[in-house]
């Protein structure tokens, strides 16, 4: 069983996101270990980008902190390699197409495989352009995660048919960030995916509270939370391990009770 499947084997998955290198790579490494201990089923590591067009202000600021701290792609690979011995939690990189393209897709995906990164999520690489990375992902057995949005409508069918690993369902219009209410009908989106194939569906964008997570967990196989955690990292800096760990534990508890 590959590690992405494992992520969805313990009830509804809780999937936290942190930006690598925020506030520094050492803290990121500790965060991954702590979040895994606290019940995270899959961890998304953001590779910071200078111009993260799909992100709201919270993650934009995290990317900019990480980059001004000198975070590089090689540094992130080094970090992942160093924690893999101690921790088998499924890992996905979330980044933009340009860092991967410029670093070299072949080299990038080869390193993903050798470090133990199980999937990559690239929000500015839609279905039509996925050939840019897919051959390299396939060659290295790294899953390229497909995304669907509330505006996808008829596109869900073709996207879901070819999806691998899990489907990332974007809960709301706009960019990442905490929202008071999730108004989209994610249940319908997910059922359209499942009509094509039995593949786990995880929902992200806007989720921050245990109540929201519990509600989403009733229809989804996984709940993704980014900005709410990155906010804690922003607030506590290198002392964020305790607060983040507590938050992840609460959220895993909330999604488990479906």
């Amino acid at each position, binding site marked *: 069983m590959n590690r992405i499947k494992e992520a969805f084997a313990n009830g509804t998955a809780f999937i936290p996101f942190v930006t690598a290198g925020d506030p520094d790579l050492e803290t990121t490494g500790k965060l991954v270990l702590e979040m895994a201990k606290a019940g995270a089923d899959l961890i998304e590591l953001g590779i910071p980008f200078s111009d993260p067009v*799909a992100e709201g*202000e919270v993650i934009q600021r995290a990317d900019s902190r990480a980059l001004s701290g000198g975070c590089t792609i090689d540094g992130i690979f080094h970090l992942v390699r160093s924690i893999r011995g101690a921790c088998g939690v499924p890992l996905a990189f979330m980044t933009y197409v340009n860092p991967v393209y410029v*670093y070299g897709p072949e080299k990038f995906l080869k390193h993903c495989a050798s470090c133990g990164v199980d999937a990559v999520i690239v929000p500015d690489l839609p279905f039509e352009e996925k050939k840019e990375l897919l051959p390299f992902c396939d060659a290295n057995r790294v899953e390229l995660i497909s995304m669907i949005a509330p505006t996808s409508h008829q596109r869900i069918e073709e996207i879901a048919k070819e999806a691998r690993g899990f489907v990332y369902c974007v809960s709301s219009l706009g960019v990442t960030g905490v929202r008071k209410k999730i108004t989209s009908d994610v249940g319908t989106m997910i059922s359209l995916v499942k009509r094509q194939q039995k593949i786990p569906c995880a929902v992200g964008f806007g989720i921050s509270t245990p109540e929201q997570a519990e509600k989403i967990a009733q229809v989804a196989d996984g709940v993704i939370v980014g900005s709410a955690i990155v906010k804690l990292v922003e607030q506590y800096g290198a002392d964020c391990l305790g607060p983040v760990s507590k938050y992840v534990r609460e959220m895993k508890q909330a999604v488990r009770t479906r």
Partner: protein
Amino acid sequence: MSKGRFGPYGGQYIPETLMNAVIEIEAAYEHYKKDEAFVRELQSLLENYAGRPSLLYYAERMTKKLGGAKIYLKREDLNHTGSHKINNVLGQALLAKKMGKTRVVAETGAGQHGVATATVAALMGLECDIYMGKEDTVRQALNVYRMELLGARVHPVESGTQTLKDAVNEAMREWTSRIEDTLYIFGSVMGPHPFPTIVRDFQSVIGRETKRQMLKAEGKLPDVLLACVGGGSNAMGLFYEFLNDPVRMIGCEAAGRGVHTAQNAATMANGTVGIFHGMKSYFCQDGDGQIAPVYSISAGLDYPGIGPEHAYLHDIGRVDYVPVTDEEAVDAFEYLSRTEGIIPAIESAHAVAYARKLAPSMAKNQVMVVNLSGRGDKDVAAIARYRGADLHE
């Protein structure tokens, strides 16, 4: 290869949330560009509102002083709102109306595209939000007030380098959050397909007129075309009609304080292939694909990328791209003002600067056209400050 390619460049590298929106725009554009009523309405707006055709002016004093090729200026500065940007905005805003959209958003650098968009939004009764880098709102304070006067909301963008690229980021983010009633009017031949094609088509009126006017004035095609290039819309607009003709074409990019300094925006000179703002093209960036903080005195050319069709024309050797520094552009700004009584936009002054270098090396029976993409009123205070005067708007 996916849709909207110029060789390997172009494409649609955008979040899934926007995919149906660009598919809808493409379908609408393909329909309306063949729709006689639409074409007639746009033509009427170009003539009766924008003031087209723009003049092709023989710059006799400049020609004589330089002592080489005969120099013509394509006077896009004489259009309503003072630049070529109105050509594209009239087309896209009309398309937005036909698509039933009630709101437009746009990015702007120097403010020319923002002013054109705010103007046409007022004309057509569309709600209008303009995104502009905070630094540019300071450099171009008068244009901010102008846009507000026209009824637009201007949003200063404080992220990143606070210039044109960040304005595009923010306009794209805004479009992602409100798609149903909104069209993003890209200001240049950039972004995801179909924008590079749509903007080029709406701007190609510049080249069509130039060809007609030149054949009338000189009885032959020009030998050289010159235009400044940021994203590259005025250049594509001039060049497109001549791509299959024996005409040399040169795009002038902003070299800021010099191509070998860290402060420039010369994408062809210093850039590498990447994928950003929805397109594969050349970008100023580092080895990790982080987009570089670029610089030019011209807010309109202060952009780390270039339209994908330019990237292709560069690779196949059809168009040459040359760097022009701040200092050369400011000299040309002053030169054209004094020689011809025409104050060019600092963007256009980059093309004028290269004309000054090239014309003397050409024969007297050769002809060159310089695209004067905009007027320079907006730049007067900034140039005064560059020259050390304590002048503020």
